[in-house]
């Protein structure tokens, strides 16, 4: 996902992390950099990937193929599509774009068994990057995210410090996005501050 949203809606509304992120800044050369992707649009799409009509019509709306391999995601300029299950995907898009994508999917899939659910406000996304990002995540997650087995393009659903998360790797910096329930986000943010303290933390607004 592109870092800077072209859409002002990102700065509208409130987030449970607002009071914590007031304290932005910190060392530019810190081991990790934290940032919240505020109010992105999130849709859960379900359907049968063995039905070629379903995959073709979804392709036409999203402009990319649905990831059919477990624990992977695909992204283009509009949105990131993450595999959540054999018939379930999460579509993460710019704030405000979700209704358009939801309508387009509903219209083109109207004759095929499917479901599209807007879950935007259920969760928020914390981005963690930097040379120590991997080490910090490893403190609270049992998934092997060593580059040998975990690369950009891969996504997992698991626990981070006991919070239920979806984790996906964006680039080799490395940069990861962590999707977490809004109600768990301040807990997880503070856990990340604690786990990252020894490496120095930069917080981006």
């Amino acid at each position, binding site marked *: 996902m592109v870092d800077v949203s072209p859409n002002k809606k990102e700065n509208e509304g409130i987030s449970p992390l607002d009071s914590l992120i007031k304290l932005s800044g910190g060392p530019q050369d810190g081991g990790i950099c934290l940032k919240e992707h505020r109010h992105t649009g999130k849709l859960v799409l379900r359907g049968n990937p063995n039905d070629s009509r379903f995959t073709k019509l979804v392709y036409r709306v999203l402009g990319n193929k649905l990831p059919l391999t477990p*624990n992977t995601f695909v992204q283009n300029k509009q949105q990131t599509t993450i595999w959540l*299950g054999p018939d379930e995907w999460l579509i993460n898009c710019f704030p405000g774009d979700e209704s358009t994508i939801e309508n387009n999917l509903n219209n083109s899939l109207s004759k095929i068994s499917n479901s599209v659910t807007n879950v935007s406000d259920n969760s928020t996304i914390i981005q963690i990057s930097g040379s120590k990002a991997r080490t910090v995540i490893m403190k609270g997650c049992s998934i092997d995210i060593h580059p040998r087995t975990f690369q950009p393009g891969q996504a997992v659903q698991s626990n981070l410090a006991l919070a239920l998360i979806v984790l996906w790797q964006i680039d080799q910096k490395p940069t990861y996005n962590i999707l977490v329930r809004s109600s768990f986000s301040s807990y997880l943010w503070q856990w990340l501050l604690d786990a990252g303290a020894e490496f120095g933390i930069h917080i981006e607004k």
Partner: protein
Amino acid sequence: MLYIECPWCGFRDDEEFHYGGEAHIQRPTDPNELNDEEFSEYLYLKSNPKGVILERWLHSRGCRRWFNVLRNTVTNEITEIYPIDTLPNSKEGTEYYGQNWRRKSSVEKTIKPREYK
């Protein structure tokens, strides 16, 4: 700690899973056809063998899908993992399924056998 292979996500720690009890317990088609004893057999009686058992697991903190597992209750060794809507393939699993007391239970006499793929 168990290290369980989700058929979709691969190997994960057991803290990501929920145990779903014994597998292949068929629900009576018409519970009213059963007397109390027969219904309690369906509802309460569970196998508790020393050795292999067929059981259901849910990858609750991952892909949230159910699947079946053949596990040895003595060694915790998992020797077969197969989809929720199928029967076991291995010799051990097929034998256990066929010989389980439930196959001869009054519940299973009253119902149409479930169709597995």
